[in-house]
């Protein structure tokens, strides 16, 4: 079989949520190798706020050696609005992707409003804490935040819990599409055996109401657009949206 399972077209597939402890070097290396074999182009491992620059640099090197583009990402679970704004002020410029897991409604609304938030994530198993309703979607559509769906629970749950999760996801995805909120499908896996090929990952999105093209966009163009937008913003040449320094003149 091919060393690298090429998935036909030239889409750049992304998995922005590989939940592995970067300190576990062996597991991280295995996951990176597998992601490269599965033809992913962009991968991301979330960091806690205690970021070590050396660790990040090492991960980037390992990924680039495997032919992958590593995206730095921070996940945060704020308890209040203030907590969230404090985190964003401190870490926005250090990470390429910021994901907020919304544990209460106050945080969910603030995160959807804030233009510095890239991804909105909700606890998969606690259905009372999934606040992605029409109001949330309207706020998110104005601020360019995307809804992130992790497929790991769909792989490990069975029976009524999976049925409930699918019902919730189908409702949320329908709302997101109505308000044109981008949807990002990530694996959310912590073990190598649960990793799936990009197109298999996209096929799981069929279960909650995305058609083939939308599902493929959710694992390729949507995450890639977020990363590209943020890389542009973080570059030293960025001035404002649509304005960047092309050439610097010499003082006469």
């Amino acid at each position, binding site marked *: *079989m091919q060393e690298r*399972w090429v998935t036909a077209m030239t889409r750049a597939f992304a998995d922005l949520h590989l939940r592995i402890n970067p300190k576990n070097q062996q597991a991280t290396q295995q996951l990176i190798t597998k992601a490269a074999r599965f033809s992913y182009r962009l991968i991301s491992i979330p960091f806690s706020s205690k970021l070590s620059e050396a660790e990040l640099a090492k991960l980037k090197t390992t990924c680039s050696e495997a032919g992958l583009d590593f995206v730095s990402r921070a996940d945060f679970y704020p308890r209040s609005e203030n907590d969230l704004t404090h985190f964003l002020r401190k870490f926005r410029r250090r990470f390429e992707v910021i994901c907020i897991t919304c544990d209460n409604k106050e945080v969910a609304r603030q995160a959807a409003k804030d233009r510095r938030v890239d991804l909105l994530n909700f606890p998969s198993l606690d259905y009372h804490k999934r606040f992605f309703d029409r109001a949330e979607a309207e706020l998110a559509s104005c601020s360019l935040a995307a809804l992130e769906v992790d497929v790991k629970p*769909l*792989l*490990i749950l*069975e029976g009524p819990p999976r049925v409930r999760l699918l019902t919730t996801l189908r409702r949320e995805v329908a709302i997101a599409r109505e308000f044109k909120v981008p949807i990002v499908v990530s694996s959310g896996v912590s073990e190598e*055996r*649960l*990793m*799936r*090929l990009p*197109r*298999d*990952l996209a*096929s*799981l999105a*069929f*279960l909650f109401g995305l058609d*083939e093209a939308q599902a493929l966009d959710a694992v390729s163009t949507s995450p890639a657009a977020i990363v590209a937008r943020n890389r542009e913003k973080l570059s030293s040449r960025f001035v404002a949206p649509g304005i960047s320094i092309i050439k610097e003149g010499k003082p006469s």
Partner: protein
Amino acid sequence: MKRIKRRYLALQLECDVVPAEREFIDAVWAAVTKLYGEVGASLTGLALISFDLERKVAVLRVSLAALSMVRASLATINGIAGKETAVYVLGISGTLKALYARTQ
């Protein structure tokens, strides 16, 4: 009567211990039935065409209308006969000839 369109799927199994042919197809049926129920499973027209133990490659035939259902079900397989196994779709084709040409 309208001819039923079909698709052939080449599947790669990733496992330490290769399951028997019967165990594999039972796991596929179980995954489809779990997700879509017996009525849904009956619409898939699922059939095992070949199972290569050495290369760990299986070929399935499904009805085109149920392709998305089967793909999603295959992605949910975590284990076969109590052993950790993952199933990946290597390729899909309308003819076996094209499928074998692509996966050789």
